[in-house]
């Protein structure tokens, strides 16, 4: 059973979103990191990039596979977790904490309401 914190929102493509006022912290779920295996490379956007919902904002790679990262909501990238660049294992070890990837300033705060709840995401991954 993977960890799905109840206070976060989720996407079908296995990103999590933590809403803090008018910003959203984004990463990949515990289930996603388990499926992917040991992360060895992550490619993240520049601060200032404006993302539309479902835009590819980066990639995360294990030894064997590449997975695209999709913006769960629209907004401007205001912070990027640069520390992941030499510590990719953090994504496996602490996906909901230090493994966060980007922070967005939300274009529309209400948009987050449309994301999956923890229960809906658990159903999505069959847990």
């Amino acid at each position: 059973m993977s960890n799905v914190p109840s206070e976060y929102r989720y996407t079908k493509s296995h990103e999590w979103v933590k809403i803090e006022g008018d910003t959203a912290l984004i990463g990949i779920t515990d289930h996603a990191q388990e499926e992917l295996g040991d992360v060895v490379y992550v490619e993240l956007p520049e601060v200032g990039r404006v993302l539309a919902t479902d835009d590819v904002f980066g990639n995360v790679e294990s030894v064997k596979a590449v997975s695209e990262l999709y913006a769960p909501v629209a907004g401007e990238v205001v912070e990027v977790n640069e520390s992941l660049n030499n510590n990719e294992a953090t994504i496996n070890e602490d996906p909901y904490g230090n493994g966060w990837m980007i922070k967005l300033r939300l274009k529309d705060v209400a948009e987050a309401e449309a994301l999956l709840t923890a229960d809906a995401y658990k159903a999505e991954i069959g847990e």
Partner: protein
Amino acid sequence: MTQEDSAALGRTPLYDSHVQAGGRMVPFAGWEMPVQYTGVLPEVRAVRESVGLFDVSHMGRVRVRGADAFAYLQFLTVNDVSRLPDAGGAAQYSLLCLEAGGIIDDIIVYRLAEDEFIVVLNASNREKDLAWMRGHAARYSHLIIEDETEQTALIAVQGPKAIEMVDALSDRDVTMLPRFGLDETVVGDVQTLAARTGYTGEDGVELFCRADRARALWHELVDKGAQPCGLGARDTLRLEAALPLYGHEMDEHTHPYEARLGWVVRTDKRDPFLGKAALKELKEAPRSKVLVGIEMEGRGIPREGYSVLAGDEVVGRVTSGTFSPMRGKGVALARVAAAQGAKGTTLDVEIRGQRHAARVVALPFYKNV
């Protein structure tokens, strides 16, 4: 993949052991095989530092025997079977080639006795190879070809401590077995044929045994501390060791000289063999494409199919790529224009529309045997 397809997948005698050990099962060449247990990185580390265990029972095993077995294999394969001692006890890497020189499969020919061999085939090519083998059998009257894949198992024990571990369990001195040598030995209480071969760039053995003894052998080795490893680790290890994989570095449209396999082809073999005339010509012809090793300068990871560029010109393609745990970088085998194949040549790999600097490097990327 539909339900029916999934139901039709083969399972090796070790399937239950894989599932019980937490192996993540995936479809591979018609079989359900573990892609990983604990993770690719720890499994690679186990093989590089200690001992890893691989179920390779999905690979085809065909026994070829009879008074004509030698002459038949001499005709079918591009390596020289006469280099294996008459009495048996040794193996050689070889290829099945089309008349035009394209590679049907890469194989290992194990000689058990003067007139008895086991040929190990890629799982993905088993049916094709068997049809090819049987198709060329008609003119040999004393020849028996038996597909023993389902009745047997094959377990690879690989790593710097593999020989020591198997030797401690064996009734023979396994340490004396030369590279590519083979011998019958009882491991634990399981009758095996042990060959000092592998696909990881490490020392080790591959153990053939009866299907119904595979679990006993596997668990004996696990109990002694061998780490079960999946296909993910196996692919990374073989790529670091620059060992080619069928369907990636070679296929029927690729000849051995474009796949760094020219050394396998004995064009000086006295006996005729399939592909001989074409391969003799290809050997002398100027190379247009070569298979080379590429290491990324920065942090990108090259993957199969990515374009390789020199300046603005596409000069080749990645055939296999991965993150190399030993080099700490992205590495790849790539087939490139011969003019761009020299060691030290700087090239770019296009990764998702962006160019990443790379360099042609000496192969293998890593090897410890």
